[in-house]
């Protein structure tokens, strides 16, 4: 009998992959949550196909879920996997390149048969050899289907129902491989299937059998152990996706401002989760209108803003295009509204389920006329909460549309989130017109901040006519006067630029005395930070300036960038932020590192590129 060794790792990447109906998302979520409970840092990323149910066993139907566990701070869901769990040959084929040398593949031996190989387009009956991984990878075959059937033979379920539980068998195996007690997984299952005792019992049985199966394998396989993280600040945590965090950030802002939250929205991948999350929150008084189209999504929200509420709309690239004219109306009518764009691959319908940062210039400039709006971006799944809150605060306090850019990667991905308390969040104080104010019209404003006074329908004495036509600076009546138009254009721009007075400085992370400044924005923070840290550990000097506020830029941005000799802007587009910075920061040669493949950066490719630049 051979002995099982346990290797202690600082961090490990596990990828679960199978048919989109195989329950890989649930398996991955359960595993990452129970690891977090045991004290690990976690970061996850689901990778689903655009088809809901592509034909079983084909490459098009493969759905994945990647989990990164760490005993110290981790920033990304990881590049290549240490452990890959595949439910069929197609999943193996799709992920073969994404596994580390010396890694482990757990596979459903029942699915690794001729018909499965054919569906996945293998030419031989030895897919591991065909892919060239047989020598470098440890294989753990497990007849998941047979074992699950065996496990549930006394339950009297139909075979179809039985096979739905095989993901629990794989979860049990992975728990064994990582020396994880399964109690916490059982606790999660109790929450999920509490109302269906039969299903709960069945899933727990299969999970336990999977764990014991591993235990009894007596294979010469390394098992792993990832120590508790000591980098994580103490406190209560949960694991949250960027989309949910965005929804909750909007709710927090509405409560803090004492205003009802109104969302006008139209379903669009990958942004729909935000609408669905807010639709659940009737208990907190959130009003959601699922509109007839993207335009009605934003215009109904603009109506709610006019009526004095915290208004928001959420969408993805094509939807942002449809909303352009209404954003222009929000600029012109100086009404507060938050527009969340969960960016995906474009142009046109593009790659709906994949991630990109290709909407930046659309957000900044995609409107007719001189039409300045606030543009900001969240960096990680959990900080979507903070930036959705801040987007609302800025919109309400500065009477402007705010476009918040997130993306499919951080929207669907999860990270640890330290639970906030409403009392600890900043106050939100809109610039309302107040009883006793005389002569307030639709363009009356605070001369210092240029923020106009917000008069709410229903309040006597402040009746006004707002709209999309140019207004007279003094009277608020419509005006085509040339000098007045210039003044209004300048005023609207000054109002936005003034916001930089209340923004935090952009931080310089990594080595302050660096030979290379890496610039990023939005959802790439994790990969960039990870790569910069690795390079610095190797003794070279790199710094990161990562931007969350884009228009206006933080006040220290220009000087900070000008302080470096070599500057590279890394983004998941062809150079949109670099183009923007060239127009704002004189005297700097901006190098670019760009990728437009619908996929996030990998830390490895960034490290390699930075190393080349440092030569």
């Amino acid at each position, binding site marked *: 009998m051979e002995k099982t060794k346990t290797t202690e790792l600082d961090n490990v990447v596990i990828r679960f992959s199978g048919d989109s109906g195989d329950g890989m998302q649930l398996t991955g979520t359960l595993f990452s*949550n129970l690891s*977090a409970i045991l*004290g690990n840092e976690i970061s996850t990323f689901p990778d689903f196909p655009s088809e809901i149910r592509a034909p079983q066993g084909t490459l098009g139907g493969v759905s994945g879920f990647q989990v990164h566990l760490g005993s110290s701070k981790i920033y990304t869901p990881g590049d290549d996997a240490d452990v890959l769990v595949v439910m069929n040959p197609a999943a193996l084929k799709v992920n073969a390149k994404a596994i580390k040398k010396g890694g482990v593949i757990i596979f459903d031996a029942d699915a690794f048969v001729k018909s499965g190989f054919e569906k996945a387009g293998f030419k031989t009956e030895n897919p591991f050899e065909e892919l060239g991984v047989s020598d470098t990878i440890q294989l753990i075959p497990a007849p998941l289907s047979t074992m699950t059937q065996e496990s549930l033979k006394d339950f009297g379920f139909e075979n179809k129902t039985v096979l739905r539980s095989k993901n629990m068998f794989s979860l049990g195996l992975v728990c064994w491989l990582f020396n994880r007690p399964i109690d916490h997984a059982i606790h999660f299952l109790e929450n999920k299937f509490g109302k269906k005792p039969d299903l709960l019992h069945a899933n727990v049985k299969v999970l336990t059998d999977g764990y014991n199966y591993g235990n009894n394998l007596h294979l010469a396989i390394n098992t792993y152990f990832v120590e508790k*993280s000591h980098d*994580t600040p*103490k*406190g*209560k*945590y*949960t*694991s*949250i996706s960027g989309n949910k965090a965005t929804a*909750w950030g909007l*709710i927090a802002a509405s*409560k803090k401002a004492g205003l*009802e939250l*109104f969302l*006008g929205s139209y379903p669009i991948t990958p942004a729909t989760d935000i609408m669905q999350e807010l639709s659940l*929150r*009737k*208990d*907190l008084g959130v*009003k959601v*209108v699922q*509109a*007839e*189209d993207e*335009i*009605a999504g934003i*215009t*109904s*929200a*603009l*109506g*709610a803003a*006019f*009526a*004095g*509420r915290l*208004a928001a709309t959420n969408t993805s690239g094509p939807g942002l295009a449809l909303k352009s*004219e209404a954003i*222009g*109306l929000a600029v012109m*009518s100086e009404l507060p509204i938050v527009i969340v764009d969960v960016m995906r691959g474009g142009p046109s319908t593009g790659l709906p389920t994949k991630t990109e940062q290709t909407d930046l210039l659309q957000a900044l400039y995609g409107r007719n006329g001189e039409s300045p709006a606030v543009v900001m971006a969240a960096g990680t799944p959990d900080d979507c909460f903070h930036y959705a809150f801040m987007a609302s605060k800025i919109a309400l306090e500065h009477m402007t549309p705010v476009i918040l850019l997130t993306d499919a990667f951080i929207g669907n991905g999860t990270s640890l989130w330290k*639970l*906030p*308390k*409403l009392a600890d969040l900043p106050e939100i104080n809109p610039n309302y017109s107040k009883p006793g104010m005389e002569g307030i019209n639709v363009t009356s404003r605070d001369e210092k901040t240029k923020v106009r006074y917000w008069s709410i*329908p*229903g309040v*006597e004495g*402040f*009746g*006004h*006519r*707002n*709209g*999309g*036509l140019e207004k007279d600076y003094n009277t608020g*009546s419509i005006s085509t006067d040339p000098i007045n138009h210039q003044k209004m254009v300048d005023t609207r721009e000054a109002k936005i630029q003034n916001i930089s007075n209340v923004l935090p400085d952009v931080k310089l992370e990594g080595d302050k005395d660096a030979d290379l400044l890496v610039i990023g924005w939005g959802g790439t923070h994790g990969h960039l930070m990870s790569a910069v840290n690795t390079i610095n550990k190797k003794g070279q000097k790199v710094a990161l300036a990562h931007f969350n506020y884009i228009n206006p830029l933080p006040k220290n941005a220009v000087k900070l960038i000008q302080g470096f000799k070599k500057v590279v802007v890394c983004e998941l587009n062809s150079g949109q932020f670099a183009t923007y910075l060239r127009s704002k920061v004189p005297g700097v040669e901006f190098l670019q590192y760009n990728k437009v493949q619908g996929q996030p950066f990998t830390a490895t490719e960034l490290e390699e590129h930075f190393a080349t630049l440092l030569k």
Partner: protein
Amino acid sequence: METKELKIQYTAKDFKSDQYVRWCPGCGDYAVLSSLQKVMADVGVPPHETAIISGIGCSSRLSYYMSSYGFHTIHGRGAAIATGVKVANPKLSVWQITGDGDCLAIGGNHFIHSVRRNIDINVLLFNNQIYGLTKGQYSPTTQKGYVTKSSPFGTVERPFRPAELTIGARGTFFGRLLDVDLKNAQMTMTAAANHKGTSIVECLVNCVIFNDGAHSWLSEKEFRADRTIVLEHGKRMIFGKDQNKGLVLDGFNLKVVTIGENGVTEDDILIHDATSEDTTLQMKLALMQGPEMPIALGVIRDVADETYDEAVTKQIEEVQAKAKIKTFDDLIDSCEQWEM
């Protein structure tokens, strides 16, 4: 906005803004504006609790001429913006001002969906069968064959009939008025204001510049009584200069008869039922065309049903009554959490 004990008696003047009205001299919109101001004063919702939402077009300028809260928005989107205003604050009286292009071309989608949802807004659809503000192109209601600047050889398009579209979208209220007929205009607008749900009022207005006389067949004073019928719920469908013409059913169709001829008596004439759920007869009335039939004015359909804004509010109240989560901090406490 608690209901006030003492109801103030408003006058039309209370609803007039200080802005100079800039429609062309002789435009039919003037009559609708003054009727609206009169109706609003009579209905008695204070100006500051009234929101006028308009899109783009000549008629949409109306929001500037009212002293209430107003929002002159973008082309076609008035219905969606009004939906947001009303759902956000159901206590406001919300009016949407729109034209045949704004409402039925670029805004067609929002129109049918606001009607379908039965959101409690009052819509004045100014139908002059032409694009006025862009200077004379055909609209979705322009009669087929009509020569305009964009149809120099006549349009080849089949026009929409707003009533058919409203009823097809499951509308609960449809009324029609003629710019020159102030009495019926005020009566119809008042009914629209009192109706809970989306009230569509088709306002037949004359564009003196680009489509002069589009409705003259009915509006000319000497023929008006014979060529139009003002429908009133519960009353017989009698019309004509001498009030001796009436409508009866002949098989599945409506027919004009003369009281006192061929043994027809007043008792034979149909009684108008605007509250009938069944749209069959209301649709027939709404689609009557000359010269054989009179054009129907007044309230053609007025059916009670739950409004969207009420339903949204009610559902929130029901959920809240049973909810464990009452505050944002409760929401945070509700999630799976652990100490690190």
